[in-house]
């Protein structure tokens, strides 16, 4: 028996009414029910009875629905299909809102790229010296000496201390010392040209036992044992012996000392706090064999036995000071000396252990560092900056998503009506944000690839993106998930919480005005931006202040020819030769330069008295010639400078103001005398009979010869020969000409020797490379931060303008002016930016004051910096907003109102 069409229509309608609507199953169930009804009717039942019997076998409405739901769920549980669905929808949503997607992706990508670079930087900083197998057991001896008005923080120790430590403490397995004596001129044979090598150091043969530096040629056990033996890096070996093996060959150092190559080692990695190319055997260095505990010149590293407690060992170091240093100090300072009295008088002589792996980031000793180190503060600072930038970028994402919630509220409502659960919606929104973040990560890697060289230039690093490590990709993947989830979490919970009935009735007034959180987030973004801008301005102000401070000498138009000792005894001839040129105003021969030159100190006391703890003054003692202050432009305060007219000037000394104060010579310094010992006994202690005195003939005005982080230390000039370099003051616009003329004279007098020169002002600027780098890096990141923040602001304004199109149209029809509307649209965010500025000011002020504490001479932080930063932020922000708001304001109201 076949059912009539009417019956079938009835069944279709009734099943529909009972909620069977899913496409996949609807037809099938209808057919099933129809077939069942037909069968029942064949047995003679009425249609309606047959239908109810058929329904009963399903379990009525509930059973029907359950069947439908189970069938649908089965299909939806296919994870792949489900994910593909989320993915497709997400992709459609993103491409539908290209403008916002582009802004989100750009912002995030820039944020992630900066983050990526900073992470690379931080990892490289944290990884210093970790390549040594024994890194955890190696310690450097640090010293602290406070005496005679001076306070020294040393990275160096006395020569015999290493040996003493190994002897005294069984837990010290081995020790190695470095003695750095600057650069050397190196040549492979008598006939070849000299090449200047900077990374040269004297060291003990235990070097290879303590540090992990693979020896490629030669025997690491026997290398560096003999005097006059050296070990060189692969790089140097290739440079000097390109066609033959370097092992067993000879290199000539400084034209005088032939050295035999006993080992070739692999180039030291850049991530070490030292980086040497040439190691010279310490066994050839007389100074290293001395027993003088009172001069600190040797970087000393000890290797502890496994399981040694370094702190416990450190606690025993004072006993070494008493046992070895005490007697020598007593001898020099007179009989009554004891360590107790010494310490009681507020003095200090202490040694401590610094873990090898801490040196790069935590050690900033003014004396004895093998190379400029990093600073943990900058590691923290940059990490914080990276995080902040990322947060700014994520905030953009969150703000745009929630701001646009008005548009998506309907979508949410409809989805919920269709049966979406909240968890489905959350997953949908999270998929969108993860997709977006993944997109940004891809873009970010590309961006980072482009920016890394610039950053390397800035930070003097050699960072590379680790494309060949699988871990890198894993980190990127995990990173994109985390960022996606973080950025999407708030919007997805916010959006999915809408009640469908309210949304569809239009009762949820969402959009711009509902955003307390959004406003706070915008404020937060701009607080960070203002902070970074203020920081940048402050660093630049300080730099400017330092460089234009009265430094006590004239740094412009001075050319310095380095390594003048290569001229041998012809330094004076060279100077006179160059001085014949009319553009050379004066020249001076000395290695003691106000910037980056030689340094030497010694301790003096006023003549007549015994040297005691109270009257001794540690001073820089510089050997200069007659033209020194004329060339460098220092000013005499009283008295006179050395002169050829006074042959007795070899017995004379010139002090700076700081030294005069230390000696208490303020009343009348001229004619006063100071004394010191000039010789040592064979055991290294000062020879009492070698006492000599000098008469003060003049006082030079204080000038800066260290970084302006430090104050001006006492200093004395002696008339003495030193051929470290030759400096010329010139007067010429054409510096290239000056260089080539001087070089010509050099070539004539020192054939085969490298001509090395620099300008005093550049050397001076180089003193502040750290600050310059900080400034530039800060500027870079501040720029990025404000760019990302403004990107968000741009999108938000665009969105407000879009939301308020009709309002703007009506206002215009009623006579509002363009400027009035621009103000109306900008007001809201303008307020937020001003709040941000007010909040950021105290934080920034605190941070800058903290940073400036390090400087002896610092710029005043006036309100000017903040005004400038505020102005910059406001101008940029308003420029960003006005683009959108002007666009909205000048649009024709007819267009926006016509549709209703």
């Amino acid at each position, binding site marked *: 028996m076949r059912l009539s069409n009417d019956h079938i229509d009835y069944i279709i309608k009734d099943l529909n009414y009972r909620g069977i609507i899913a496409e996949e199953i609807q037809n*099938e169930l*209808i*057919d099933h029910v129809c077939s069942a009804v037909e069968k029942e009717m064949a047995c003679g039942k009425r249609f309606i009875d047959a239908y109810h019997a058929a329904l009963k*076998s399903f*379990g009525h409405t509930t059973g029907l629905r359950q*069947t439908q739901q189970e069938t649908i769920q089965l299909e939806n549980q296919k994870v792949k299909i489900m994910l593909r669905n989320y993915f497709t929808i997400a992709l459609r949503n993103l491409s539908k809102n290209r403008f916002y997607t582009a802004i989100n992706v750009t912002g995030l990508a820039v944020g992630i790229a900066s983050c990526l670079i900073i992470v690379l930087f931080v990892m490289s900083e944290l990884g210093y010296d970790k390549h040594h197998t024994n890194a955890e057991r190696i310690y450097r001896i640090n010293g602290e000496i406070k005496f005679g008005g001076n306070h020294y923080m040393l990275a160096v120790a006395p020569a015999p201390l290493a040996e003493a430590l190994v002897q005294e403490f069984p837990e010290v397995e081995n020790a190695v010392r470095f003695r750095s004596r600057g650069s050397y001129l190196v040549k492979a044979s008598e006939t070849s040209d000299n090449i200047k090598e900077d990374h040269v150091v004297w060291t003990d043969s235990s070097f290879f036992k303590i540090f992990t530096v693979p020896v490629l040629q030669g025997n690491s056990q026997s290398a560096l044992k003999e005097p006059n033996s050296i070990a060189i890096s692969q790089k140097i070996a290739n440079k000097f012996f390109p066609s033959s093996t370097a092992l067993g060959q000879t290199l000539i150092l400084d034209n005088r000392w032939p050295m035999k190559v006993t080992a070739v080692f692999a180039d030291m990695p850049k991530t070490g706090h030292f980086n040497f190319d040439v190691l010279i055997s310490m066994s050839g260095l007389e100074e290293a064999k001395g027993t003088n505990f009172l001069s600190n010149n040797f970087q000393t590293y000890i290797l502890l036995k496994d399981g040694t407690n370094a702190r416990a060992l450190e606690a025993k170091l004072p006993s070494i000071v008493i046992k070895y240093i005490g007697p020598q100090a007593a001898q020099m300072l007179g009989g009554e000396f004891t360590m107790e009295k010494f310490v009681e008088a507020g003095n200090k002589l202490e040694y401590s252990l610094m873990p090898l792996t801490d040196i790069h980031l935590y050690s900033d000793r003014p004396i004895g560092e093998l190379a400029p180190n990093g600073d943990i503060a900058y590691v923290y600072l940059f990490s914080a900056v990276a995080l902040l930038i990322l947060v700014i970028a994520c905030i953009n994402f969150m703000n745009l998503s929630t701001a646009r919630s008005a548009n998506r509220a309907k979508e949410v409502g409809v989805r919920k009506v269709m049966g979406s659960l909240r968890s489905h919606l959350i997953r949908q929104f999270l998929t969108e944000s993860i997709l977006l973040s993944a997109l940004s990560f891809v873009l970010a890697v590309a961006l980072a690839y482009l920016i890394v060289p610039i950053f390397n230039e800035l930070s003097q690093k050699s960072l590379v993106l680790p494309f060949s490590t699988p871990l890198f990709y894993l980190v990127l993947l995990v990173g994109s998930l985390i960022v996606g989830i973080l950025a999407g979490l708030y919007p997805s919970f916010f959006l999915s919480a809408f009640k469908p009935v309210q949304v569809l009735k239009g009762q949820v007034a969402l959009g711009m005005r509902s955003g307390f959180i959004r406003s706070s987030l915008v404020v937060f973004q701009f607080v960070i931006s203002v902070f970074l801008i203020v920081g940048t301005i402050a660093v630049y102000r300080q730099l400017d202040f330092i460089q234009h401070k009265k430094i006590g000498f004239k740094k412009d138009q001075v050319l310095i020819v380095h390594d003048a000792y290569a001229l041998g005894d012809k330094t004076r001839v060279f100077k006179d030769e160059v001085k014949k040129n009319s553009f050379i105003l004066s020249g001076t021969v000395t290695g003691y330069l106000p910037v980056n030159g030689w340094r030497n100190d010694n301790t003096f006391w006023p003549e007549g008295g015994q040297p005691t703890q109270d009257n001794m003054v540690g001073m820089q003692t510089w050997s200069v010639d007659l033209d020194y202050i004329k060339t460098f432009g220092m000013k005499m305060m009283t008295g006179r400078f050395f002169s050829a007219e006074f042959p007795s000037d070899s017995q004379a000394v010139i002090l700076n103001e700081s030294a005069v104060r230390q000696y208490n010579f303020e009343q009348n310094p001229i004619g006063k005398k100071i004394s010191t010992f000039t010789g040592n006994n064979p055991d290294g202690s000062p020879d009492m009979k070698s006492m000599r005195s000098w008469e003060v003939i003049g006082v030079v005005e204080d000038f800066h010869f260290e970084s302006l982080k430090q104050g001006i230390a006492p200093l004395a000039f002696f008339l003495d020969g030193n051929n470290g370099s030759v400096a010329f003051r010139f007067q010429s616009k054409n510096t290239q000409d000056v260089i080539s003329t001087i070089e010509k004279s050099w070539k004539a007098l020192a054939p085969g020797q490298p001509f090395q020169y620099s300008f005093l002002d550049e050397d001076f600027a180089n003193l502040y490379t750290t600050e310059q780098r900080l400034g530039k890096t800060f500027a870079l990141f501040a720029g990025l931060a404000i760019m990302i923040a403004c990107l968000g602001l741009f999108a938000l304004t665009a969105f407000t303008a879009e939301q308020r199109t009709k309002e703007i149209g009506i206002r215009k029809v009623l006579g509002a002016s363009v400027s009035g509307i621009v103000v109306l649209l900008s007001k809201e965010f303008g307020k937020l930016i001003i709040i941000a500025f007010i909040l950021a000011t105290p934080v920034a002020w605190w941070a800058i004051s903290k940073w400036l504490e390090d400087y002896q001479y610092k710029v005043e932080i006036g309100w000017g910096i903040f005004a400038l930063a505020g102005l910059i932020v406001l101008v940029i922000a308003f420029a960003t907003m006005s683009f959108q708001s002007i666009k909205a304001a000048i649009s024709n109201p007819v267009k926006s109102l016509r549709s209703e």
Partner: protein
Amino acid sequence: MHPPELLKGTLQTIILKILKDHGKMYGYELTQRVKELSADRILLTEGALYPALHKLEAEGLLTTETVMIGKRVRKYYSLTPEGSGLARERVAEFIDFIKTMTTVLKIEAA
């Protein structure tokens, strides 16, 4: 009537085997066929049948074809080659299972 718990694991086997023996069938026909074969002792409920059919289809073991019959649309199911392979396997498994159960429950051959 056999209790439904006993049938739970055999639903797929039943569907596959019947489709293997009869070629294409639609849902209602399947229920009737089972009823017939078991002499009313096994009742395939619609609530279990349709989800199972859709699952097998999604797994690629069944193909479907729809035929318009007047105002109704009828959906016929038939085995794919994979499905037919699985049918054989399932039946073999089940025979094996019965043997095991016979020993486990110490059922005397009646």
